[in-house]
């Protein structure tokens, strides 16, 4: 008490914490966080896989097969189509038959880009029931 009182009387030596630089420090940390932060880049095309062995039987007439062959050509039924046309064609088929399930059958040696493009087209066509048919070995060995 005595000490503090004596300091008070001196007056001029009142302790003074400099706060001018807190802002600078805070901005420094801010820049660090801004440069290291990654905003959620997690984006993509969602799909829910079916459980193994719990495949639901769908009548053959309710299945539309969209296939991608080794060279990346896209086939609906037996017809070769262009990728950007897939969504209109699938939409037409879906309008004809709302029960339709789309089976996407992609060759193992087809490029992934084509598969994603076709899958995207199915999403654009608002196909609700999409299944990815796993293709095992193909005839040619490739």
């Amino acid at each position, binding site marked *: 008490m005595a000490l503090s009182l004596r300091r008070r009387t001196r007056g001029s030596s009142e302790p003074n914490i400099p706060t001018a630089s807190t802002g600078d420090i805070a901005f420094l*940390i801010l820049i660090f966080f801004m440069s290291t932060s990654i905003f*959620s880049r997690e*984006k993509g*095309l969602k799909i829910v*896989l*079916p459980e193994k062995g719990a495949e639901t039987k769908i009548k053959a007439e309710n299945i539309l097969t969209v296939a991608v062959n080794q060279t990346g050509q896209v086939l609906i039924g037996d017809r070769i189509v262009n990728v950007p046309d897939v969504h209109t064609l699938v939409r037409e088929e879906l309008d004809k038959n709302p029960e339709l399930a789309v089976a996407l059958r992609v060759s*193992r040696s087809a490029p*992934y880009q084509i598969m994603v493009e076709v899958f995207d087209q199915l999403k654009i066509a608002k196909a609700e029931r999409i299944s990815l048919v796993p293709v095992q070995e193909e005839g040619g060995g490739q």
Partner: protein
Amino acid sequence: MKKIGERKIATPNIPTASTGDIAFLLIIFFMVATHFRTERGLKINLPQAEMTERILKRRNVAAVWIDATGRMTIQDNLVNPAMITAIMSEKVIENPELVVLLQADKDVKYGFVTDVLEALKDARAFKVTFATSYAKGGG
């Protein structure tokens, strides 16, 4: 000279006391919004898709990376499909809401992707997202 002296008295004073508070507010925002990249992943070019959508809950995401040559990694460990099943089934038990983010290069052969999908089915990790980037319109 006299004029200058007079002006000095009337020097405008910008209050800077609150800049620190503002900066700390922003820091708190960035700290909450940020998450550090825990895995480096592989060098890949994502395929593009128009219907790309965001995964909202980031905590539920586990990534599997596949590069153009078909190498697969999970948390920077090189894995094969059998190991993916083992790792992912553990993660699914911990968090049934798990979404597997498949970060695959656009030039990879689809066979590798389908192998991973089969592995994920075995692991009962049914929620899968193919990582894509937004397609620039017009395609």
